[in-house]
């Protein structure tokens, strides 16, 4: 089966500072993969390249077999994104934000309207559809962003530290909801985080990014077993390596 995402030998630098170096990994369809790495590991740069905010100059990125550089439209159609930075238009209502996202993907109204309803219901936002994004709390804003990322029925969902600034119950509920999406709809998910408690060691796949390089990739259980048994041990190991360098 074609991978949902295949990143091959990707490097990127900001001037002389290298942010990513020969990064390669893949995400199988329908899997939940956590992209784990401390702050500054290169996660956001990687996301910017996968979403083509800027071009990948070294290496290649493919989404469901479509090369991002050669067929960006085809590749981006498969992709839903929730950025770390909030990207809602605060002056628009929840409904208007979702309609705008549907328009940006060129969805006709007859297709967009039921999908907006579906996502409002799934994210438990129906009662807030008429509220301006500005008046929502952090958790609800995040839900709107996830609903927006799902409007065009992507096959791969990227979330860049989506729980930043949220309280513990909201974080847990959001993670559970995304896992549910993965199981029920067969959506592939790449969840970037630096919080080890957001990873389910028994079911998730793990890509560990450290100092712009892939440090480990595979089933979370296998990686943990090889690195002390727990995610905290793994993070301590990364910290030790950083201190030693």
């Amino acid at each position, binding site marked *: 089966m074609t991978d949902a995402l295949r990143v091959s030998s990707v490097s990127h630098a*900001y*001037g002389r500072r290298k942010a990513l170096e020969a990064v390669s990994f893949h995400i199988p369809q329908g899997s939940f993969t956590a992209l784990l790495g401390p702050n500054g590991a290169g996660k956001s740069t990687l996301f*910017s390249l996968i*979403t*083509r*905010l*800027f*071009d990948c*100059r070294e290496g290649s990125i493919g989404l469901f077999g479509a090369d991002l550089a050669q067929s*960006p*439209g*085809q*590749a*981006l*159609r498969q*992709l839903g*994104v929730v*950025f770390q*930075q*909030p*990207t*809602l*238009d605060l*002056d*628009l209502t929840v409904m*208007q934000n979702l*309609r*705008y*996202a*549907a*328009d*940006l*993907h*060129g*969805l*006709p109204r007859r297709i967009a309207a039921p999908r907006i309803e579906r996502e409002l219901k799934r994210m438990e936002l129906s009662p807030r559809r008429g509220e301006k994004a500005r008046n929502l709390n952090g958790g609800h804003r995040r839900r709107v962003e996830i609903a*927006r990322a799902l409007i065009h029925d992507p096959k791969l969902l990227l979330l860049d530290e989506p729980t930043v600034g949220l309280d513990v119950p909201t974080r847990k509920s959001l993670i559970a909801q995304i896992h549910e999406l993965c199981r029920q709809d067969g959506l592939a998910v790449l969840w970037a985080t630096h919080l080890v408690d957001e990873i389910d060691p028994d079911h998730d796949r793990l890509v560990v990014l450290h100092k712009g390089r892939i440090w480990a990739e595979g089933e979370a259980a296998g990686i943990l077993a090889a690195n002390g048994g727990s995610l905290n041990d793994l993070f301590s190991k990364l910290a030790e390596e950083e201190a030693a360098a």
Partner: protein
Amino acid sequence: MSWLICLKGIVWREMLRFLHQRSRLFGALVRPLMWLVVFATGFRAALGVAIAPPYDTYIPYGVYIMPGLVGMVQLFNAMQSSLSMVYDREMGSMRALLVSPLPRWYLIVCKLAAGIVVSILQSYAFLAVAWTFGDDAPPLGYLTVLPALLANGMMLGALGLLLSSLIRQLENFAGVMNFVVFPLFFLSTALYPIWKIQEGSDILANVCQLNPFTYGVELIRFALYGQFDGLSALVVAVAGTVFLVAAVMGYSPSRGLAKLKAT
């Protein structure tokens, strides 16, 4: 079809934002009105405007500066759009636009189109208010000016987009007022005819003739009187195209944002 839906969505969002920001409409009208009511009244007696095309008789100074003030409305709207692009980029909301599967150049053209629509609405709102002050144009002129507003809106909107692709931080935007807006406006025929400027300084008159905004204003002036100024139309079209191509390059995934991110 999906391209049209995207265009509609971007224009619709810009309209909604414009309607929500009532102070923006208020500001867009008050600024030129201050010039029309206060400045033009003061200068009416001091400044004589000789008969020159497209006018076939002596005209009050208020009538002379009206096309320039329409240009001013469009100029400030373009800079406001540019500012909001920089703000959207800093706040992150532009990312939602840029991950659309449609080509980046098309998204930029859609943003430009949305800005032009708002700019034309503002211009007509100003023309309506100016009409109530007695500074009017021939009735048919309000229709024939539309293509000129479209062309001038395109040129200035593209310039705004280009500036937004070059400006790295919101704080730097203040410089645009000093180094772009004021020179464009004051070194043009918006407030005085070229021959009047020439009486004071040949150099300044030459600078005015190199300023693309001069031609935007003249295009509007002639169009308001049902006439077509070919040279102005050509300059506005060429300048608009150059600005737009540069703006599209500035927002290209291979150039603009990566460079901006590096700072």
